[in-house]
């Protein structure tokens, strides 16, 4: 299980962005590919621990699952894999290793509240 260290990496990235923007982060949006090697449940489980005592403590982790998309050399089109157990075109059955999407492990957006300027 390496999800705790991945979670800490996400926290580091979010904290850095928060500092640059002087913003209060309330949510972290993550794109998680089915081929990233990271298990969603384990990541969510690690999240609170990873956030603890950081400036984004209490922020939510919102995960968007990214399915595997391959290019089928036969159909000459991008196709979404139906199963991780079969790297073949779901339409014509041609095997393919041309992965176009599904390895993502990316913080793509932050939900922020601007710090209030004291009067």
């Amino acid at each position, binding site marked *: *299980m*390496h999800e705790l*260290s*991945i979670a800490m*990496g*996400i926290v580091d*990235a979010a904290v850095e*962005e928060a500092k640059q*923007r002087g*913003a*209060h982060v*309330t*949510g972290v*949006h*993550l794109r998680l590919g089915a*081929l*990233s*090697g*990271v*298990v969603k449940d384990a990541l969510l489980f690690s999240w609170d621990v990873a956030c603890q005592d950081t400036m984004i403590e209490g922020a939510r982790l919102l995960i968007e699952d990214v399915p595997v998309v391959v290019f089928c050399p036969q159909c000459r089109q991008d196709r979404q894999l139906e199963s*991780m*157990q*079969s*790297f*073949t075109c779901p339409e014509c059955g041609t*095997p*393919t*290793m041309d992965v176009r999407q599904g390895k993502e*492990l*990316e*913080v*793509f*957006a*932050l*939900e*922020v*509240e*601007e710090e*209030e300027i004291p009067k």
Partner: protein
Amino acid sequence: MSEPRLVEVRRNVLKQNDVIARALREQFRAAGVFVVSLVSSPGSGKTMFLERTLTRLQPKYRVAALVGDLATENDAVRLARSKAPVRQITTGTVCHLEAAMVQNALQEWDLNQLDFLFIENVGNLVCPSSYDLGENLRLVLMSVTEGEDKPLKYPTIFNSADVAVITKHELAAAVEFDWEAARKSIESVRPGMQIFRLSAKTGEGMESYLDFLGQRLAEHRALAPT
């Protein structure tokens, strides 16, 4: 506080690892060393396989190995019997190697003096798949005692590998290992991947795998003359 708003940041979480891995790959290219990483489950026979690989390559090539292990140095001790330079990376509780660990371990080594460098990852078929180590070839090892459907259970790591080795061939008959089913499992999760069947113990099948490594080294150097 004002209303929350969404700001796009687009940051790759493993960027730091990928940057180091790219630097390592460039370093390996410049030194003309071919780097093979090994991934497998615990107990698949990775250390014996690597020991035999090092021993058999040595008459012809300069070889070395880095081995990742959670707590012990047993593997490094076993591999030292091959007389090749071996360094242990003890990962503590970390279940995989990261590029930075490889970079640290290689600090005092002169890579120009090597033909092959092997990196044995921690025995684990899940976590290592996320981390690029800068290797030129990722070899996934499974033994006949693990069952033919192992690749279907761990599609991500098999998909991320470049070549598969099925070892403990000498036990295949005893466990009624179905080679065709295993080949189909691998082909299904990683179409086109080359598969070697061998026994590290008896040496059966080792020759064609070692020839393959020699060929890949030659190709590597042809692309990146030193």
